[in-house]
C-alpha cells in the first residue's frame, strides 16, 4: 500500500492532521471503541469506589511529594541501667516448666537432660543448656546441703510454721531448722513492686535443706530499671559490665537486699527514622494516635488528669489534659458475624467489617431488619447498633466547627548520636519523591525488575547472538549449549535454581587465585548484596530473581539477535570486508544497524513477555504486584475485585510498554 499523502495537494496543517486522525479512527475495528468505552467505565468506577481505592493503595504505594518518615529502623545504643532481678525458666524432665531465681542456681553446662522414663516410657531426652538448681528437700529426699534463708514468721501459721518472704512467696518449714530469731523489718522490692508492703515481725533465719534438680534452660530474664524509672524485663545476654555495690538503707527506693547492681544494657531503639535538623539521628518510637469527635457527639468537656496509654507507650507519664465524654457511635450495615462477645458489621458502602464488642452496645437501641434475624438466615441480615457513651482523654490538638481532634497518645522522639548508635535495620519506608528508595514494592518492584532484567538480557542476548554466528567452533558450541539449556528450562525452575542452588554455592565458594589477581565469585555475591541493600534497603532474593530472569530471557533474545544478523544479506558482510573493514567494524557499522529493524518487533514482544513473567518472582518471596494482591486477599477474602485490579494493572503496563516499543520501531523505520 503506498502512502498517498505525498501526492495530495498542500493543506493547512491542522486540517490535515484532523483528517489523518479521522482516517485513523475510521480504520480502527469496531471492537476498539468498545474497549475504549470499557476502559473509561473502569476508570470512573475505580476512581469513585472506596473499595477499589483501597485495593489500589495496597498494590501501588502511591508516591507523595515529600515524606519525613524515611526509614523503618532498629538502632542499638548502650545505656546504663540497674539490674534488679534475674530469673530463669526451665523445663523439667517431666515436661513441666518452673521459674527459679538466679540465686538458686548451682551450676550450668551444655548437655543432655535425661527424661523421666518411669513417668513416661516414650519420652525423649532433651539437649541444650542444663541448669542445676537448689530445691527445698521433701520427705524421703536426702538433702545434699543446706542454704541459709531469711524470712518473716507468719503469725497465723497455726499448726504449721509458715515463713513469708518479701517477694510475696511463703514456705512451710520445720521449726527445728530455725537458727536465729529477731524482731525487725525485711524490705520488699520497691523497684519491682512499687507500693509493696515491707514485712515487719519476727525475722527468722533458718537452714533450708535442699536437693539438686536439673532442668533445660528455656529462657532467662533480667529485670532492669532505667534512669527515668522505667522497669522492663530483658535478656541477660544484652547486659555487660555487671557491677554490684553495697548500698545504704537511705536509698530504699532504689536499693534492696543491701546491694545495688548496675550494668550496661544494649538498648534497642525501634521506630521510624525521620528527617532531623541537626546532626543527631531522630527516631520516632511511638506513633501519634488521635481521635476525631464530631461536634454533635460531644457531651461534655473538662480538664483533668489523663492516665496515659501504657499499651502504646510503656514509659509514658500521666498528664493534665482534657477528658471528653462523647455519645456512642451508630453503626449500620450487614451483619457478618456474631459471637457471644461481639458483632461484626459491614458498614454500608464499605467492604471490610468492623468488630464491636457487645459490652459496648446499648441493647435497647439495636434494630435488626428483618426482625430478630441472624447471620445464618437466608438472605442478608441488616443491623443498626448504637454504642454506649464513652470517654476519650488526651490533649486537644485541633478545634474546628466540625469537631475536635484529641491526641490520645503523644509521639515520642529519641535523638541518637550517630557515633554511638549502631543500626541493625534500616529499611526505606514510604514511597515519596524525596525517598525514591521507599518505592520498592508492588508495581514499582515489578517495573524495576522488568527493566533491569531486560537490560541485562539485552546485553547477554547480543553477546550470545554474536557468538552464535561465529565461525569459531568453541564459541559457537558454547553459545549453542547455553541457548539450548536455558530455553529448555522453565523460568520458574530457573529462578528457584538461582535462589537455592547457585546463590548459596557462589556465596560459599573460595576465591580462586589466578596468579596476578584473585577471582572471587563470593566477592561478586557480596557486591550484589550491597547493591540490594543500596537499592531496596535490605537483603533479599532480588539479585537472584533479576539474574534468573535476565539469563532466562537472554537465551531467547540471543536467537532473536542471531535471526536479525542472519537476515542481513551475506553480500553486506562481503562488501564491508572487501572495503577493508575488520569483522568487528563490519558488524558495528554495517550489519547491526540493519539488523536492528528486523530485531525490534520481537525484542519488544519479549520485553512485554518479561513484564508478565516478572510475576514469577513471587515464589522467591519478593513483594511484587502479584504477591501484594494475594496478600490483600488473604486479609480480606475478596478475590474478585483484587484479581480484576491486578489484571487491569498488568494490562495497562503492557499497553504503555507496547506503545513505547512502537514509538521506537517508528524511529528506526526505513523511509
Amino acid at each position: 500500500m503506498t502512502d498517498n499523502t505525498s501526492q495530495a495537494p498542500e493543506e493547512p496543517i491542522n486540517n490535515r492532521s484532523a483528517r489523518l486522525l479521522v482516517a485513523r479512527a475510521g480504520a480502527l475495528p469496531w471492537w476498539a471503541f468498545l474497549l475504549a468505552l470499557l476502559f473509561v467505565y473502569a476508570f470512573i468506577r475505580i476512581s469513585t469506589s472506596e473499595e477499589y481505592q483501597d485495593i489500589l493503595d495496597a498494590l501501588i504505594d502511591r508516591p507523595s511529594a515529600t515524606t519525613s518518615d524515611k526509614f523503618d529502623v532498629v538502632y542499638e545504643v548502650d545505656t546504663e541501667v540497674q539490674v534488679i532481678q534475674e530469673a530463669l525458666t526451665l523445663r523439667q524432665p517431666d515436661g513441666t516448666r518452673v521459674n527459679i531465681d538466679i540465686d538458686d542456681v548451682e551450676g550450668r553446662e551444655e548437655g543432655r537432660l535425661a527424661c523421666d522414663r518411669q513417668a513416661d516410657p516414650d519420652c525423649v531426652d532433651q539437649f541444650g543448656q542444663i541448669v542445676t538448681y537448689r530445691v527445698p528437700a521433701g520427705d524421703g529426699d536426702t538433702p545434699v546441703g543446706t542454704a541459709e534463708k531469711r524470712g518473716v514468721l507468719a503469725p497465723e501459721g497455726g499448726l504449721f510454721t509458715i515463713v513469708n518472704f518479701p517477694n510475696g512467696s511463703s514456705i512451710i518449714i520445720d521449726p527445728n531448722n530455725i537458727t536465729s530469731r529477731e524482731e525487725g523489718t525485711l524490705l520488699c522490692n520497691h523497684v519491682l513492686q512499687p507500693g509493696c508492703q515491707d514485712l515487719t515481725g519476727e525475722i527468722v533465719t533458718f537452714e533450708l535443706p535442699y536437693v539438686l534438680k536439673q532442668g533445660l534452660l528455656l529462657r532467662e530474664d533480667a529485670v532492669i530499671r532505667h534512669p527515668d524509672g522505667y522497669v522492663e524485663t530483658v535478656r541477660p545476654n544484652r547486659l555487660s559490665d555487671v557491677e554490684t555495690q553495697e548500698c545504704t538503707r537511705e536509698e530504699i527506693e532504689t536499693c534492696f537486699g543491701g546491694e545495688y547492681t548496675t550494668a550496661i544494657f544494649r538498648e534497642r531503639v525501634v521506630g521510624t527514622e525521620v528527617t532531623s535538623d541537626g546532626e543527631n539521628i531522630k527516631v520516632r518510637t511511638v506513633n501519634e494516635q488521635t481521635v476525631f469527635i464530631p461536634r454533635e457527639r460531644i457531651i461534655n468537656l473538662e480538664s483533668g488528669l489523663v492516665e496515659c496509654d501504657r499499651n502504646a507507650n510503656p514509659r509514658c507519664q500521666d498528664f493534665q489534659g482534657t477528658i471528653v465524654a462523647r455519645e456512642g457511635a451508630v453503626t449500620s450495615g450487614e451483619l457478618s458475624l456474631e459471637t457471644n462477645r461481639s458483632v461484626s458489621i459491614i458498614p454500608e458502602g464499605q467492604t471490610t467489617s468492623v468488630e464491636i464488642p457487645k459490652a459496648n452496645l446499648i441493647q435497647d437501641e439495636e434494630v435488626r431488619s428483618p426482625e430478630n434475624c441472624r447471620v445464618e438466615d437466608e438472605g442478608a441480615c441488616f443491623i443498626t447498633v448504637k454504642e454506649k457513651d464513652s470517654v476519650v482523654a488526651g490533649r486537644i490538638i485541633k478545634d474546628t466547627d466540625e469537631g475536635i481532634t484529641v491526641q490520645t497518645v503523644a509521639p515520642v522522639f529519641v535523638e541518637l548520636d550517630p557515633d554511638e548508635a549502631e543500626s541493625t535495620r534500616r529499611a526505606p519506608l514510604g514511597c515519596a519523591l524525596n525517598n525514591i528508595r521507599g518505592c520498592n514494592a508492588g508495581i514499582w518492584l515489578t517495573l524495576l525488575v522488568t527493566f533491569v532484567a531486560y537490560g541485562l538480557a539485552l546485553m547477554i542476548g547480543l553477546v550470545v547472538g554474536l557468538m552464535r554466528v561465529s565461525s569459531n567452533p568453541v564459541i559457537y558450541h558454547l553459545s549453542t549449549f547455553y541457548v539450548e539449556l536455558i530455553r529448555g528450562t522453565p523460568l520458574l525452575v530457573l529462578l528457584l535454581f538461582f535462589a537455592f542452588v547457585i546463590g548459596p554455592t557462589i556465596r560459599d565458594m573460595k576465591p580462586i587465585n589466578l596468579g596476578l589477581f584473585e577471582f572471587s565469585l563470593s566477592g561478586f555475591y557480596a557486591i550484589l548484596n550491597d547493591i540490594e541493600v543500596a537499592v531496596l534497603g535490605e537483603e533479599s532474593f532480588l539479585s537472584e530473581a533479576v539474574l534468573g530472569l535476565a539469563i532466562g530471557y537472554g537465551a531467547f533474545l540471543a536467537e532473536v539477535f542471531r535471526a536479525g544478523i542472519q537476515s542481513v544479506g551475506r553480500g553486506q558482510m562481503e562488501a564491508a570486508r572487501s572495503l577493508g573493514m575488520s569483522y568487528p567494524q563490519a558488524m558495528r557499522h554495517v550489519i547491526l544497524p540493519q539488523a536492528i529493524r528486523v530485531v525490534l518487533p520481537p525484542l519488544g514482544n519479549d520485553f512485554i513477555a518479561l513484564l508478565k513473567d516478572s510475576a514469577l518472582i513471587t515464589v522467591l518471596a519478593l513483594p511484587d504486584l502479584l504477591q501484594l494482591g494475594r496478600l490483600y486477599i488473604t486479609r480480606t477474602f475478596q478475590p474478585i475485585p483484587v484479581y480484576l485490579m491486578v489484571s487491569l494493572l498488568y494490562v495497562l503496563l503492557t499497553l504503555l510498554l507496547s506503545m513505547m516499543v512502537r514509538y521506537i520501531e517508528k524511529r528506526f523505520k526505513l523511509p
Partner: protein
Amino acid sequence: MRSKLLKLALILALILSVVTVLPTVAQEGIGTITVGTNAEYPPFESVDEDGNIIGFDIDLMNAIAEDAGFEVEFVNTKWDGIFTALSQGEFDAVISAATITEEREEIIDFSDPYFNAGQVIAVPAAMAETVSTVEDLVGLRVGVQLGTTGDEFASELEGVEVVRFDEITLAFQAMGEGELDAIVNDGPTSADIIANNPDLNAVIVGEPLTDEFYGIAVYPERTDVLDAVNVSLANLIADGTYAEIYMEWFGVEPSADFMPAEAVMIEVDPTDPGSVIVGHIATLLSAESPEEILTYVCEEPAASSIVPTTAEELAAFAGIDLQDASGLTFEVTEVEDGVVDVVPSGNLVLNIGTLPASLLLTQLGIQSIRLVQNDEGNWQICPAAAE
C-alpha cells in the same frame, strides 16, 4: 437416512435412561464430600513417595467420616486461596491445620477445635543463644507462609522484616541456606520439618507464642456436614480414638482437653485405711466448719486433742488446699482387731509449698494416726497421742 434416525433414537434413549436413573439414586445422608487440603504441611498433611496424601489431619478426617457414615475425597490445593474457594463451594470442607479466626468465620463455618498448636520461633542452631523470645526478633529477617496466622503475627511486630513464602518448606530451605534469620510458624509442623531434615540444622526456641486452635472448615451451606463432623469429633475424643491417632503421629498423649474425661478427685474408700487418711487430711486442710472435722473424729478423742476442733484452729488452715496427695505412702500396723496405726510418709503438695508428711505429724504432735473400725466396717480417725 434410516441409519441416521436409528442413531438419533439410540442417543435419545441413552439420555433418557440416564436421566431417569439419576433421581432413583437417592442421596440419603451425606454421601461423599470433597475435602480440600494443602498437602505441604507435615505432619498434618503431606504427600508421600507414592503420591498419596497422608497425615494426622487425613487420618482424623477419615476416622470422622467412618464414625459419621460418609465418604471423603481429598483434593490437594494451594493454601492462599483455600478459604475463598471453600466459601464459594469448590469444596465441601477443608482440613488443613487451619487456625480458627474470626475473619475466616465470617465467610465459612468452623467445627469445634480439634488441635491446639502454637506459633513457635525456629532459628538456625547457631542463633539459638541469642534468640528465644518475640522481642529478640527485632531487626531480623523472619520467614512466614503467606496468609497464615504466622504471617499475621509477624506482620504486627515492629522492626521486623517479614519475608512471605508460598510454602513453608521453601522458607525452611531458605533459612538453611542462611537467607533468613528466623521462621514463625506452627509448632508441630516446624518440629516435624526440623526432625526430618537434620541438615537444616535448625532448632525451635522458647515457648509457644500463641494458642492456635485448628478447626475443620465447612462450606456454610453444608450444615449437615458441620453437625456430623462436630458430633463425630466429640465421639472420637470420648472413646479414645483421637488419642490413638494423636499418639501415632506425635508419639505422646494429647492434652487433657482431647483426652477422655477423667474425674480427678480424691475418692475416699471408707474400707481402706490409707484412703481414709488422705481424705481426712484433705478435709482437715480445707474444712470450713468444725462439724466437718468432727464427723471423722471418733467418739473418744485422745487427751491431747490436737485435731482442730475450734474455729480459731480451723482459721489456721484457711487458704490451704491439698493439691496432690499421690506422693504419700502409708505404713499400716495392726494394733488389735479393728484398730490400726498408720504412719504416712512422703510429700503433700499444698498451694503454699511442699509439706513433708513427717513434718505434718511433728506439727500435730503425734507419731502416727490411729484408725478405728466402726460397726459398719468403715474406718474412723482417732489421733494417737505422741509417746
